[in-house]
């Protein structure tokens, strides 16, 4: 029951809104941007244990910030659903004959597009700051990884939004979720520096594999095998889509 037209319409609406709401774009990438610029400059000469000697901290750090951007902007999609609920527009979507699965896929497609655009803005700025990418084919392959990361966290946001009906509750849970996921993903420092017990949490964190794969592709350094990262992300992404679709199937809308 997948209707391409419905997916397209919801994606298209997201694009129109994205282009029109400059403030939302700025708001969503403000945090990663500050981290990139201030921490990037501040820590550029720092010596972090666990880094390969030929890799400077800034090279290590940029893929982590790209992962962070995808996480933060992805989880925001759930917030958009709640705002739609608040303004009554969610009801309008839900009474159309489009299947719930198509609606969820449309949300994911729209959210992934805007998330990846924002991640590219961050990547572009980091190139100006001296970040070096290993090559164009690797960059293209990194898009696939970025897409999978987006799908995972957008789905998580959608599942949350189908259960929490209050924007403030959502915000609280989002803050509570975002930072551990970000900090335990190896985005800022190699996971070998963590105590073993906490490192296990990192292994349960999908962003760990996402950041690792982006790093492997963009700077040629990764902790796990690229294929392993990819397969883990792919499986989690599929499971999350199915969970999100079923969350919207069973949840009542009004």
């Amino acid at each position, binding site marked *: 029951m997948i*209707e391409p*037209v*419905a997916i*397209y*319409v919801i994606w298209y*609406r997201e694009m*129109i*809104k994205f282009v*029109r*709401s400059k403030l939302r774009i700025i708001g969503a990438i403000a945090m990663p941007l500050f981290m990139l610029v201030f921490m990037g400059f501040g820590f550029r000469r720092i010596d972090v244990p666990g880094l390969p000697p030929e890799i400077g901290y800034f090279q290590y750090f940029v893929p982590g910030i790209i992962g962070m951007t995808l996480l933060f902007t992805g989880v925001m999609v759930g917030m958009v659903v709640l705002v*739609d609920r608040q*303004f*009554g*527009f969610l*009801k*309008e*979507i*839900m*009474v*159309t*004959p*489009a*299947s719930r699965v198509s609606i969820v896929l449309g949300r994911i497609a729209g959210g992934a597009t805007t998330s990846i655009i924002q991640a590219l803005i961050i990547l572009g700025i980091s190139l100006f700051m001296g970040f070096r990418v290993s090559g164009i084919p690797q960059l293209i392959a990194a898009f696939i990884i970025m897409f999978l990361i987006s799908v995972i966290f957008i789905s998580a946001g959608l599942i949350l939004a189908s259960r929490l*009906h209050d924007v403030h509750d959502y915000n609280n849970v989002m803050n509570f979720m975002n930072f551990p996921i970000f900090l335990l993903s190896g985005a800022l420092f190699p996971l070998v520096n963590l105590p073993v017990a906490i490192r296990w949490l990192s292994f349960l964190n999908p962003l760990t594999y996402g950041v690792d794969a982006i790093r492997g592709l963009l700077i040629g350094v990764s902790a796990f095998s690229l294929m392993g990262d990819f397969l883990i992300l792919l499986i989690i992404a599929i499971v999350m889509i199915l969970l999100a679709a079923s969350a919207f199937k069973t949840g*009542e*809308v*009004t």
Partner: protein
Amino acid sequence: MDAIVLEGLTKTFGSVKAVDTVSLRIPEGQLFGLLGPNGAGKTTIINMLTTLLKPTAGAATVAGFNLSTEPDNIRRHIGIIFQDPSLDRDLTGRENIDFHAMMYGMSKELRHQKIAEVLEVVDLAQKADLLVDQYSGGMKRRLEIARGLVHSPRILFLDEPTLGLDAQTRRRIWDYLRSLNKKLGITVILTTHYMEEADSLCDRIAIIDHGRIIALDTPENLKSGLGGDILTFECDETEVDRVIAILQDISGASSVISDGMKISVVIPNAERHLPEIIANVQAAGIMLQSASIKKPSLEEVFISYTGSTIREENGSLSDKVRSFTIRRMRQ
């Protein structure tokens, strides 16, 4: 054929029965009204029939499709105008309708033609390319009606369609709904707590209170069911009992009620009886301070069934709690 059939439809929110075993048949082409105070359960009924809420018990068919097994088919054949605004304020009026039409899988040519048509009907063609954020309340409502129609539904649901609109806009929307119903044969189901709206617009009305249908008929039958017009007199309080006695002797008089200095009686063709009553009262040496005749309205029908007026803001505490609970749970 019946457009809608409800059989024992029930919805409970926690311990509150918002809709309590409602059974109802609405034939195709009817302009049907659900009339009742806030919190009576009208919106809950609409939300269930439009597949947004799952009934706790009971069954229903909408446009010939089973509510619990064929919700997707139902959605394809109905249009809904919600009580609360449901527009995307970041999009223009035209984009809102176009978005909706695309969701129903309409082709580009058909969309183009139908959108122009519905915008013309609600008189928004000139403003279609403004952001909805810049629309007035009445324009938003009209846009929602246009949107609800663009996919040519067989049944149109409207939840308090004229809530918060000025009298002029309200009348235009009434005219418009009437013409939709008569010209296109669309079955229209609306909820309202405005008596005049139900009276002047609907072919048939269900009066709902505390989740139950307490009366179901045409507005004319409901009103004539009251047994006549309402005559109201005012006199000195000490004389009230004697006036009541006189009124009870008039042939055809029913339900004599007194409230302080006021006495009212229901009587058919009140204007014919008025001279006789006044003569009898004067013969008894009682001075009347005023007399008035009121043709029955749905307001009186409502009072006669529920014992309270629909507009009463100071409803009982349990009514308020009920209304509040339903509202919260619906969010």
